[in-house]
C-alpha cells in the first residue's frame, strides 16, 4: 500500500530520545488459592523482571513456549492485568500506576489484536457497530458521515469487502474475522499494536495473508508492533528484534538476523532446531530437551533453564545469569559462551 488510508489524525510529534514503549523490570505474580488455613499464599511468577524497549515503527517479537508469560507481558502493557511491579513507559511517560480514568486517553495510542478470531468479536454486534465503538468512544469522528467514511477507510485498509458492515462475526471465516479484529484495533489510530498470538489460530495460507497485511499496515502507518508468538517461523518474516522468554524471564534478545544466525542461549538453540525446514533432505540436528517446563509456582533456583539444559553445571543451579552483551544489540542470559557447533 502506497498511501496511508488512516493517517488522517494529527499524531503527537515524536519525542526524540526515548523509545515508544519501554518496559523496565516488569513483574506480574498471580496468587494461587490460599492454603487451607489461609497461612501461606503461593505466587505464580508469570513475569519476573522483564525489560525491553520498542522503537517507533519497529516490530519486537516476544517468543516462548505456552505458559512462559509472554501474553501476560502484553496484557500488562495494555493494563488489562495490573502489573505487580516494574515500570511501563509509553513515549517516556509512566503508565504502570495511572488510574483507569487517566489511562483512558492513552488507550487510544495502544491497541491489541487477540489470538482467537472467534472469541475476540462480540457475536451480537454487526461489523459496523464493532468498528464504530472505538471511534465514538474516543470521539474521533464528528457526525454520522465522518464516522461512515472512517469505517470505510478501515475496511479498505484490512481489505474487507464493503458489504461486510451490516453482517455479524459468525458470517465470516477465521481470517476475515481476524481482519475485523485488526480493523477494530486500528480504528483509534494507535501507535503501538500488541498482537497476542494474532495468527496462531489460523490456517497456514490465511496466516500468511494476515502476516502480509500486518507487515503492510506497519509500514504504511508507522506502527510499532509487539508481536507475541510461540512460532519462530512466523516471527522470522516480521520482526526487527526478537526476545525469547522462558519461565517468566527474557533469556535472549537480538536483532532478527543475529538470532537466527548465531543464537547464543541453549534454549534459543533448542527452539530454533524445532522450527520446521521446508526441505526433507536438509541435514537437521534436532536438539530435544528433556523433561518439562518446571512449574512457575516453584521455579528452579539459579538459571531457570538448568533443569533441562544439556550444558548445565553447578554454577547454573546457584547463580541467576544476568543478561549480558554477546554481540551488537545482542544480549543473552547464559553464564557461558558455548560454541555453536557443539
Amino acid at each position, binding site marked *: 500500500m502506497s498511501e496511508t488510508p488512516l493517517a488522517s489524525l494529527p499524531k503527537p510529534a515524536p519525542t526524540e530520545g526515548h523509545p515508544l514503549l519501554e518496559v523496565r523490570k516488569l513483574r506480574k505474580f498471580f496468587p494461587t488459592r490460599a492454603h487451607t488455613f489461609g497461612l501461606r499464599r503461593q505466587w505464580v511468577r508469570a513475569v519476573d523482571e522483564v525489560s525491553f524497549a520498542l522503537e517507533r515503527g519497529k516490530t519486537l517479537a516476544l517468543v516462548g513456549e505456552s505458559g512462559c508469560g509472554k501474553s501476560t507481558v502484553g*496484557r500488562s502493557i*495494555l493494563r*488489562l492485568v495490573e502489573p505487580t511491579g516494574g515500570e511501563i513507559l509509553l513515549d517516556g511517560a509512566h503508565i504502570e500506576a495511572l488510574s483507569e480514568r487517566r*489511562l*483512558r*486517553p492513552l*488507550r*487510544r495510542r*495502544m*491497541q*491489541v489484536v*487477540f*489470538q*482467537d478470531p472467534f*472469541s*475476540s*468479536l*462480540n457475536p*451480537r*454486534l454487526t461489523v459496523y457497530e464493532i468498528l464504530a*465503538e*472505538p471511534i465514538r*468512544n*474516543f470521539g474521533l469522528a464528528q457526525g454520522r458521515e465522518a464516522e461512515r467514511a472512517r469505517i470505510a477507510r478501515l475496511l479498505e485498509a484490512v481489505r474487507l469487502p464493503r458489504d461486510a458492515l451490516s453482517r*455479524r462475526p459468525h458470517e465470516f471465516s477465521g481470517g476475515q474475522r481476524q481482519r475485523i*479484529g485488526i480493523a*477494530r*484495533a486500528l*480504528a*483509534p489510530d494507535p501507535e503501538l499494536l500488541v498482537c497476542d498470538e494474532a495468527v496462531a489460530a489460523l490456517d497456514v495460507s490465511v496466516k500468511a495473508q494476515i502476516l502480509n497485511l500486518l507487515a503492510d499496515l506497519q509500514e504504511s502507518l508507522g506502527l510499532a508492533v509487539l508481536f507475541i508468538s510461540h512460532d519462530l517461523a512466523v516471527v522470522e518474516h516480521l520482526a526487527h528484534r526478537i526476545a525469547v522468554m522462558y519461565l517468566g524471564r527474557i533469556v535472549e534478545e537480538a536483532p532478527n538476523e543475529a538470532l537466527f544466525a548465531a543464537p547464543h542461549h541453549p534454549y534459543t538453540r533448542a527452539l530454533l532446531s524445532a522450527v520446521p525446514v521446508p526441505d526433507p533432505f536438509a541435514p537437521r540436528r534436532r536438539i530435544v530437551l528433556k523433561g518439562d517446563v518446571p512449574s512457575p509456582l516453584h521455579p528452579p533456583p539459579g538459571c531457570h533453564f538448568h533443569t533441562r539444559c544439556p550444558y548445565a553445571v553447578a554454577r547454573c543451579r546457584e547463580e541467576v545469569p544476568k543478561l549480558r552483551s554477546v554481540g551488537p544489540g545482542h544480549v543473552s542470559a547464559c553464564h557461558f559462551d558455548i560454541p555453536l557447533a557443539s
Partner: protein
Amino acid sequence: MALSSLTKRRLAVFRAHRRGFWSLWIFLVLFSICLFAEFIANDRPLVIYYGGHWYFPVLFDYSGDTFDPAAMPTEADYRDAELQASIHTKGWMLWPLIPYSYNTVAYDLSAPAPSPPSWRHWLGTDDEARDVLARVIYGFRLSVLFGFTLTAIASAIGIAAGAVQGFYGGLVDLLFQRFIEMWSGMPQLYLLIILGSILTPSFWVLLVFLLLFSWMHLTGVVRAEFLRGRSLDYVRAARALGVSDLAVMWRHILPNAMVATLTFLPFTLSGSVTVLASLDFLGFGLPPGSPSLGELISEGKNNLQAPWLGITAFVVLGGLLTLLIFIGEAVRDSFDPRKILV
C-alpha cells in the same frame, strides 16, 4: 428490526414445544380477561341509560339522587331495589356478566353462607357471602400482577448486583458474597410477623419486603456469567479500547448473560405467586378482604363442609402455577443451544 436467525430459531423451538406454547396462549387469554376484571365482575352496571342520558358507573361515581330523587345524595348503591326500580322507569341498565365485585356481600342467599354453587353464584359464595368467582378473577389478577412486579424489580436488582460482583471480582465479590450469605440466612417469616405488627401489610409494603430477599435468586447465575464474560477476548478488547465499565457490562456481557437469566424468569414468577399465596394463607399477607388466592385456600380449610371453596382454590392456583411452569420449560428449551429442532 429484523429478527436474527438465532431469535427465529428460538421462536421455532418455542412453537414446537406444544405444551408450553398452548400454556402461554391460555395464560395470556386468562390474564387479559382478568385485566378487565371490573368489566366482568362488578357490583355496578356497565351502562345506564336514564332520562335520555348515558351513564357509565363502572368508570365514574354517581350519587344516588342522580337516578332516584328520593335517594340520599351519597354514592349510588346500584344493588338497592328501589334505585333499580327508579332506573327501570326511565331507562335501562346493563350489568356485567357477574354482578358481584370481590367484596360485594350477597344478602339474598338461598342457603346460609358459604352457599353452594348455583345459577347466581357459579362457584358458590365464601363464608362471608361473597361471590367466589368474582374473588377468583380479582385474585388471579392480583397474584399475577404481584408476581410480575416482584419478579421484574427483583431481577433488575439481582442482575445489577450479580453483574457488579462478577465484573469486578476480587474483594468486591468476596464481601458481596459474604453479605448475601448472611442476608439469606435472615428468618423472613419472623421478620414479616414483626413487620405486620408495626405496619399494615399492603400490596406495596409486602412487595418491598419480599424484594429485600428475593433479589438474591438471580445474583448467583448472573455473577457466574459475568465472571466468565469478563475474561472473553472481546471484553478485553473493549477495555483496551477504553470503553467504560458500565458500557462493557451493558453492551458486551449482559446480552450474553441474559440467556441464562431469562430461562429462570418464569420459574421466579411462579415462585413469587406461591410466596404471596402462602403468606395470605398464613394471614401475614395482604389486608383482610383483599381478593387473594391464599385467603381462599385458608377459607377452604376453615370450611371443609363447603368443598367448592377448597377445590376452586386448588384448581385456580394449581392451574396458574402449572401454566407458568410449562411456559418456563418451553422458554428454557428454546434457549438451549443443544436442542435439536425436529
